[in-house]
């Protein structure tokens, strides 16, 4: 049973159809990439999958493979915070870290749904508050380790370079213990070294059993990390398959990669 089932999803904004009858599935412990030119509907699709937006037609179904007792949920009827609690973690295209907090505290925010101490516990520093705070710190440090930021815990978030900001967003999402991790252009703006580190991290996360769906422009990165690729063009799915198949699909080359892409050697 797949982790994510996108079934005939359409989303219109006024007269524009941003996503048109798109269907695909994401399977457990798989890295799936969605690629396509600017305006192909990638971010719209992402917002549908993280329940920030709702489809006009079709369904987006999610089942958390890491919690076998959980039923499949329809993300069109779910609010974003419920989607997160059900096991969908995400990062954002434009860095959305909490600059006012330390790196560790950023990740602790990701533990929110795992705590129950309320305002009264916080105000009065009840024992529950102390206990949960210790648990949150422990879990947050683990998430930082998994994202390869273990040595940055005490740093102020706003002093991180861009590459580590993306890793911080990943750590923060991992702290929610997601079954499905959505990465929105994680390699955007990164240099080669940072991209390499990101690719390693994403693969390691997949190997831990977390399913990954990512949107990305950086072809080298996509080809290197993905198990499967979905190609969107003008909101429609034009191809799906392994990176190797996508690379040699003539329609994909025309729509996105450019005629000369095949001529040069694939980077990395």
């Amino acid at each position: 049973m797949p982790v994510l089932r996108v079934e005939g999803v359409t989303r219109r904004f006024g007269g524009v159809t941003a996503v048109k009858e798109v269907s695909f599935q994401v399977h457990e412990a798989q890295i799936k990439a969605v690629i396509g030119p600017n305006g192909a509907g990638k971010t719209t699709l992402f917002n549908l999958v993280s329940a920030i937006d709702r489809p006009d037609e079709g369904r987006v179904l999610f089942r958390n493979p890491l919690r076998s007792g959980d039923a499949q949920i329809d993300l069109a009827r779910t609010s974003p915070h419920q989607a997160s609690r059900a096991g969908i973690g995400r990062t954002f295209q434009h860095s959305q870290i909490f600059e006012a907090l330390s790196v560790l505290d950023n990740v602790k925010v990701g533990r929110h749904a795992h705590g129950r101490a309320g305002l009264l516990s916080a105000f009065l520093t009840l024992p529950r508050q102390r206990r949960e705070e210790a648990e949150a710190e422990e879990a947050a440090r683990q998430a930082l380790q998994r994202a390869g930021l273990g040595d940055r815990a005490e740093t102020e978030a706003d002093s991180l370079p861009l590459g580590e900001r993306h890793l911080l967003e990943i750590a923060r999402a991992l702290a929610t213990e997601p079954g499905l991790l959505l990465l929105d252009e994680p390699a955007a703006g990164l240099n080669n070294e940072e991209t390499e580190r990101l690719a390693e991290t994403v693969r390691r996360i997949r190997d831990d059993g977390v399913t990954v769906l990512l949107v990305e422009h950086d072809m080298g990165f996509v080809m290197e990390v993905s198990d499967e690729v979905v190609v969107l063009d003008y909101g429609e799915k034009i191809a799906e398959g392994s990176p190797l198949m996508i690379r040699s699909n003539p329609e994909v080359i025309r729509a996105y990669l450019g005629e000369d892409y095949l001529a040069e050697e694939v980077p990395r």
Partner: protein
Amino acid sequence: MARFGQREGAEGAAGESRKARGSGRGGRDRPSRGPGGALGWPSGNLAFLLFSLVALTVPLYLTNSYYLSILAFFAIRLMPTIGLNLLLGQAGQISLGHAAFIGLGAYGSAVLTTRWGLDPWPAMFLAAVLSALVAVVIGVPALRLEGHYLAMATLGFGEIVLILLIQLKGLTGGTDGVVGIPPLTLGGWSLTDPRLFHVVVWSAALIMLRMALNLPRTRTGRALIALHRTEIAAASLGIDVAFHKLQVFVVSAVFASIAGSFLAHYVMFISPEGFGVTLSVLLVAGAVIGGLGSVWGAVWGAGLMVLLPEVLARYNEDYTLLAFGLLVIVVMIFLPEGLAGAPARLLGLRRTPHIVGSRTQAEPVEERGSECRS
């Protein structure tokens, strides 16, 4: 969302790349500092203990009842300012109707004690419950929406409450107000003695201060800071944004209501004109001037709100508002962290040469200031 106080992350790619470069140039790994951190006062227990000690022992050596009354008003003003500091500084929500919650507390206490014969403490409690319920009714629709809806809703709410206080003559005495409100009592002692009242009202204010100081480093506090920065990212981490905004709004309303009750039992007479939009705006201005980056900002803001009119030789509300307007501008330009940030800023500037000296002399003072306001 209205965002005040917190240092804002650079929005957009330009800011981002500049930041990335900035951090590339010389390891700015400073130790972490939470939003309740050392802005102005050393954070944590020591500062609070010292402040409490001073605040509670003042009556031992200060017997002048005029000064004591100013300090009592300071404590009464501190309560709603702490609430606004949390609402505005941590959650990033503006209320322009908090004077109405003070009014609800004051009139709730006044009416329940004089008309229905309740004791002052239960009256204060019931008035606070009423304020909380009213806050829920306003907050549920207003806080669901992103933007300045809460500011608009509370502005309207404040006016409605004021009109009701004036028009419901049978209950509130109309423009004449309510007279003969009984003083608070404690264990058989009437708190008409200004020194006793001082200790009680400051104890209440200090409890609120302690609770607020505890908040930033907790699950709820971090949720507020997160949704202040970006509601979508906060929600994507499992935070129920609407609930947390409503919760802190209700808390700030309750703090204001309790302040109103203390006021009613202290001056023993209340009339509606003091609870208008002027006070609401003054409270927000005070919270901003004091500083929203730290809960201690509320202490600075409330102190200023009470002392400034006294210092301006003759109490004149117009001058006070004018002065506060100017202060908001000056503080926003020169002290973005508010008065609470001033000592740290001055200290920081004085300390900078020692820190920077070990690196280079070429790029001294400017770095710290510029990154704070990116």
